[in-house]
């Protein structure tokens, strides 16, 4: 096949019309903020030159904390600039409970890496050429790197832990979901790039794959002696916050309004309730109940509303309980 290199490059870089995560005016604001930051950080540096060692340590901790994110030169306009709710952690000053969450998540496992398998063996068919992959093991390596990431938001109850982490350069995030006392399917840690910019209006990224992190996990909560179908169930999730999002309301299947806990970049929630549909099958290979979430800005205005189950944007004419 004789092809022009320019055509090859053009097709290889096809972004599918994906919108940008920034605008010209946002960049102007970012550049101006960067200039102000340079002045501020410069001022701090001059002050530190004459400070004691103790003073330097305090300043270092301040700069390392998520509350000082507007002072970190690598920040972008697309990160939330003024989180209204303090995040739950900062590297140097974890509480015992926060340290316990970090320890638990650092012992959890990442997903197993995919490996290529020969044609004809069982695996997952690739999108275009019929290649196949499968997991080499049931679990991947332990997420020990989380000890060096910032705990962004977390919730722990008698049933387990849901926590989110952000890497030191604020470019990746990790979600950690663990059951208390024992392992269950779906336990573990996964990481993904930290999305930048406003809440996306599409759940599909430029590479055609679905945007990550827009649904939540589900599990049964079983009492001793219960049969296959248990009376209670747990919904838990760690999700990306996006720009301008200040709070969220999640409408649980039993009618409860759940208020997630917000970190600087992410939010988490956990909600256990009596099973609303007693006939639903005891696994998640089924339609889970509608669970709409509303993301709100600082003034309480709705930015977007979508459903975790299934994960799609809700038309404005849908009822507040979702399900359309």
């Amino acid at each position, binding site marked *: 096949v004789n092809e022009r290199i320019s055509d090859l490059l053009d097709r290889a*870089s096809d972004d599918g019309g994906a919108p*940008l995560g920034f605008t*010209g005016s946002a*960049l102007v604001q970012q550049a101006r903020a960067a*200039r102000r930051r340079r002045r501020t950080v410069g001022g701090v540096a001059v002050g530190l030159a004459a400070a004691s060692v103790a003073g330097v340590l305090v300043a270092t901790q301040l700069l390392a904390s998520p509350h000082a994110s507007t002072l970190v030169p690598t920040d972008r306009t697309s990160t939330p600039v003024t989180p209204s709710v303090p995040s739950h952690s900062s590297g140097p000053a974890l509480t015992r409970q926060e340290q316990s969450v970090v320890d638990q998540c650092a012992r959890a496992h990442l997903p197993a890496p995919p*490996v290529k398998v020969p044609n004809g063996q069982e695996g997952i068919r*690739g999108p275009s050429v019929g290649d196949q992959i499968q997991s080499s093991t049931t679990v991947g390596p332990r997420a020990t790197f989380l000890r060096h990431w910032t705990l962004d938001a977390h919730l722990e109850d008698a049933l387990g832990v849901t926590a989110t982490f952000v890497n030191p350069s604020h470019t990746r995030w990790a979600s950690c979901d663990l059951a208390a006392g024992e392992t269950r399917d779906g336990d573990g840690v996964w990481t993904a790039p930290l999305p*930048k910019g406003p809440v996306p209006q599409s759940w599909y990224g430029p590479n055609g794959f679905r945007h990550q992190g827009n649904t939540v996990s589900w599990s049964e909560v079983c009492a001793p002696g219960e049969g296959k179908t248990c009376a209670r169930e747990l919904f838990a999730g760690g999700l990306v916050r996006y720009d301008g999002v200040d709070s969220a309301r999640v409408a649980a299947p039993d009618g409860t309004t759940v208020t997630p806990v917000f970190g600087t970049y992410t939010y988490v929630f956990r909600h256990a309730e009596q099973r609303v549909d007693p006939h639903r099958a005891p696994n998640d290979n089924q339609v889970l109940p509608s669970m709409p979430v509303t993301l709100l800005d600082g003034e309480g205005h709705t930015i977007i509303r979508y459903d975790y189950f299934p994960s799609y944007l809700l038309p404005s004419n849908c009822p507040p309980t979702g399900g359309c």
Partner: protein
Amino acid sequence: VRDADDAEFEQFVDAHARELRRTAFLMCGDWQRAEDATQDALVKLYVAWSRLERAGGLRAYAHRAVTTAVLDQGRRPWRREVATTTVPDSGTDPIERVDRRLAVVHVLQRLPERRRQCVVLRYFADLSVEETALQLGINAGTVKSQTARALEQVRTSLVGLGLDVELEELS
């Protein structure tokens, strides 16, 4: 930068940012990094905006800034840190590698930085040999030789991946 300059800059971003993001993607093979690099480059462009020559050179300058931003990004230590963790959405997913489109991206990433800059600026950003030389601070002969070697390497690598590709433009 005055308000009129701001408006002009915003128009430039609206008109060229997606094309610049595609250039960045060809340089790094990762849309997230491409978007970051495009933002970095455009912020730097804004800072220099009032000093830049408008006639023709602006677009070429922006493309060069994006390729440089990608290379700068690759030199940051945290990229190495990320590479050590097993992530589910890695750019080296075996499914993607065998896809023809992404094979091109994969091959580009294996080019030396200067050759990759030359081939992307010449054949995607559509800069002339002279414009490429000016932007990269090298002479036109070097652009030609680096581009020719890059194309030969791309062709050989694609054939090595089992793709039946002849590249029409070899200089």
